[in-house]
């Protein structure tokens, strides 16, 4: 269980690193081109992982048929997300970007958990609010720091 917790924290790290590096790339070679390279490099590495893991031995058309069609749309959504991220990351302050991304994600997450598991967890809403406040607080410190810098 601890491993899972560490895994999702680490996922956050990879998100920030990936986002920044990719928008730097996109700055140089273009939005869509940046997305393209993101996916091609990603495909290459994921193929390597797949080969190492031997999971590909389990792949079959029966398996693929058991998956609901909408589950295949993740890649398509990812293209939209990556492209828009490349666009937006340099254009608005990290302050608003992180905050807005979190609010959007958490709000949607709570709704989805409700529809998939049938519960509105008050704890999640209150906890989510706290996470939001903590984030807001830290980001306000950053803003003050950058204002101090200009003097």
């Amino acid at each position, binding site marked *: 269980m601890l491993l899972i917790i560490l895994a999702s924290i680490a996922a956050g790290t*990879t998100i920030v690193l990936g986002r920044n590096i990719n928008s730097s790339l996109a700055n140089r070679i273009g939005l869509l081109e940046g997305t393209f390279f993101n996916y091609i490099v990603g495909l290459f590495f994921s193929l390597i992982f797949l080969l190492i893991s031997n999971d590909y031995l389990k792949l079959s058309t029966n398996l*693929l048929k058991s998956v609901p069609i909408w589950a295949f749309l993740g890649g398509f959504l990812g293209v939209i997300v990556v492209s828009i991220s490349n666009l937006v990351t340099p254009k608005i302050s990290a302050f608003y970007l992180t905050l807005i991304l979190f609010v959007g994600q958490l709000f949607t997450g709570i709704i989805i958990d409700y529809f998939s598991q049938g519960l509105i967890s008050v704890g999640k809403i209150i906890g*989510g609010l706290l996470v939001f406040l903590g984030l807001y607080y830290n980001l306000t410190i950053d803003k003050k720091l950058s204002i101090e810098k200009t003097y």
Partner: protein
Amino acid sequence: MYKLLSGLIGILITVMLVFNGTLSKNTGNYSSIVIIHLTGLICISCILLIKKRKLKLYNNIPIYLYSAGAIGVFTVLLNNLSFNYIGASLTLALGLLGQSITSIVIDHYGLLGAEVYKFKKQKLIGLTIITLGIIIMTFY
């Protein structure tokens, strides 16, 4: 306008997490990532073709800039794993903790071309509040 777009990606990210997580539950973590990248690659290739954009081999770009794709694979792997055990909102909240910590480190050292924002102990307060929020989300 950009703020609205950010809100949109926030929503899309969560939906994407659910789609990818479901795919990986059915076809295995590693297979699903290949499928995800394959479908995404086909998608962006079509867009590039439609827009008639050319890809060149760029020779004055440091190699590390291309690594975002590899990093992305880890993101999807880790997120899929977590989603199937602890659900969407918890995965996201913990991911946010990771993002906050990483951002603080990046800001402090000015890594990846970001401006330097030195670490202030006050930030520990924010991190503590975030962690508290996550604990509440876990147990209630």
